[in-house]
């Protein structure tokens, strides 16, 4: 009896030692995304894109001779939960770098923790201006803030003949920031800004707001939210016979999912996206784009997700490049290395420029923004 126990104990210890040894072979990257809640669709797409990047890098030998290990946590589309899992990743799993947290409110909630534990985070989706202007040197963002989206949109806005625009935005930093930045840009272009209606992120019935828009004299409605809510908005707008020029912003529209779930209700709608997988020739690196799309399809994922998952892909590749440049998987080294990066992602050049108060700048990369249109159930690049 005693011998069996000793053997078992030895086995356990050996197993523990072995797993500890193998554990040291990986470089951990913390990934926090909304996998449940109103943003679950988007968060899941980003997570899967990240996995593709990690697998691709590991297949080629990993980083600094070690394999990448993604530690993925669900922030439940909730700011408090986001802060909590970020802390868990940094304290418990001791990740040297993070990627996340998808939504602006979620990222903002995590930011104080980054300052506390001095760990850098790659922001792949959030678009609130506050993120890079709050004086947090641990933030590096590859997605465009709504201000940059507005600037990109300004280049073509005159061709759309908008006289007056109403806004229907999600009731958080992302939506409200968009209304502010786009509103300002519109006024500079002589476009009148009408109503700004909000919808709670978990709201499913927007018919009240949409009924108000019906009696508005604006010709265009700018809508900012994630694909689930956009689906509902378009379906309900169609059900009310609301006919305006619809333009969505934010890059989380997943147009193919919209076509799938909202059907004819989305014909004629236009969308500002940050990726154009339907026309790889237009993207900065058509070969890489085609490979990514191919790999995505091979894994059986819905094509609609490509417009968001590429961010997870680009994000992990950016982090890997920074780790490589830093020479070691340590937070401070990785942070310093981020500033030296100059690579090409699926969306455009990734090179961080300084934003925010001096001495505490955050990194912001300037990505490309595309305008696409849905016609007869297909995505096209509109001729303006």
């Amino acid at each position, binding site marked *: 009896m005693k011998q069996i126990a000793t053997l078992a104990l030895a086995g356990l210890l050996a197993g523990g030692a072995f797993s500890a040894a193998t554990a040291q072979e990986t470089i951990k990257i913390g990934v926090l995304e909304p*996998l*449940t*809640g109103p943003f*679950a*669709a988007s968060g*899941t797409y980003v997570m899967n894109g990240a996995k593709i990047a990690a697998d691709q890098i590991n297949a080629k030998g990993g980083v600094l001779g070690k394999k990448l290990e993604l530690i993925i946590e669900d922030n439940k589309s909730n700011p408090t939960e986001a802060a909590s899992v970020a802390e868990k990743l940094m304290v418990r799993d001791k990740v040297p770098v993070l990627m996340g947290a998808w939504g602006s409110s979620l990222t903002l909630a995590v930011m104080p923790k980054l300052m506390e534990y001095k760990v850098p985070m790659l922001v792949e989706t959030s678009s609130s201006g506050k993120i890079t202007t709050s004086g947090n040197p641990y933030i590096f963002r590859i997605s465009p803030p709504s201000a940059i989206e507005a600037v990109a949109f300004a280049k073509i806005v005159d061709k759309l003949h908008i006289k007056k625009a109403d806004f229907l935005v999600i*009731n958080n930093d992302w939506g409200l920031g968009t209304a502010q930045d786009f509103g300002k840009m519109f006024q500079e272009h002589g476009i009148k800004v009408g109503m700004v*209606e*909000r*919808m*709670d992120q978990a*709201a*499913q*019935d*927007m*018919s*009240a*707001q949409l*009924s*108000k828009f*019906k*009696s508005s004299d604006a010709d265009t409605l700018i809508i900012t939210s994630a694909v*689930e809510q956009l*689906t*509902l908005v378009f*379906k309900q707008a*169609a*059900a*009310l*016979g609301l006919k305006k020029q619809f333009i969505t912003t934010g890059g989380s529209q997943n147009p193919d999912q919209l076509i*799938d*779930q*909202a*059907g*004819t*209700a989305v014909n004629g709608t236009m969308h500002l996206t940050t990726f154009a997988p339907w026309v790889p020739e237009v993207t900065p690196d058509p070969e890489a784009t085609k490979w990514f799309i191919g790999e995505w399809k091979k894994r059986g994922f819905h094509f609609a997700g490509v417009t968001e998952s590429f961010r997870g892909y680009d994000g992990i590749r950016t982090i890997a490049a920074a780790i490589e440049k830093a020479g070691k998987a340590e937070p401070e080294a990785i942070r310093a290395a981020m500033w030296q990066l100059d690579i090409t992602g699926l969306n455009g050049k990734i090179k961080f420029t300084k934003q925010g108060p001096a001495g505490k700048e955050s990194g912001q990369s300037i990505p490309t923004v595309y305008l696409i249109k849905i016609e007869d159930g297909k995505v096209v690049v509109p001729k303006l």
Partner: protein
Amino acid sequence: MQELLQHLINALILGSTYALLGIGLTLIFGIMRVVNFTHGELYAFGAYAIFFLESSLGVNFFAAIVIAVVAGCALGALIEYVLLRPLQTADIDTTMLVMIGAWIVMQNTELLYWGGVSKAVPTPFPEEPLQLGPVFVSWLRIFVLIVGTALIIGTYLLIDHTKLGKAMRATFQDPATAALMGVNIKGIYTATFALGSGLAAAAGALLGPVFLVTPTMGDLASLKAFAIVILGGLGNITGATLGGFILAFVEELGAGYISSGYRDAMGFLIIIVVMLFRPTGLFRQAERIG
């Protein structure tokens, strides 16, 4: 004016499904005195059932609705038989807690199986709405109104004109005497829970295609159902029906003219106000069924 009419039409349609939810709960709450927290989950179940049947099994939309409702009844009967029957003699907190436990298990099973991403239910109706004068209604919503109303009438007929209904009314008034009269009380309880759950599942199957199917959709539905029950008076089906419509109107008009953000608060404010001033409900004949 046109906007007002549009709000009224929206409210009318929503009200019919709310009424189903409310009737189902008032029966359970009234006859069995159980704080049924699984009611919202049966609502969600109805929606997931129709999604599953259509998307994974390729069942026709209309058939799927029927199956979803029947499955809801069966699930309700199962819950009653396994969880509530053994607790017949226990006090109200115990049954309430068991219902909370069941609610947690059901919701997370749905989450586990279908994931956190919301699902859209395909419908055979055209997307283009029907225009009735100044207002627009989608075909799907008209269908919801028709089926909802049919189920409400069907429930009335069941309660007022069948032996089962009579037995239920008797049990509601006085279980002891009803038992002496030969009514199978245990069977009635099971039937009541099944019926109530089936109605909740019907509401879910009808509203699921209108909105989206998410794992937490039942939570708000549960609470609104309680609001309707309070409004209409415990066990009062007419009250629940009217309560459902009233809630829908208050929500729709409140959201349209006051504030869309507080839309879902309307139900709860109603509860609080009614409880303060008329705890037995708005309608005089509170403590009777039918």
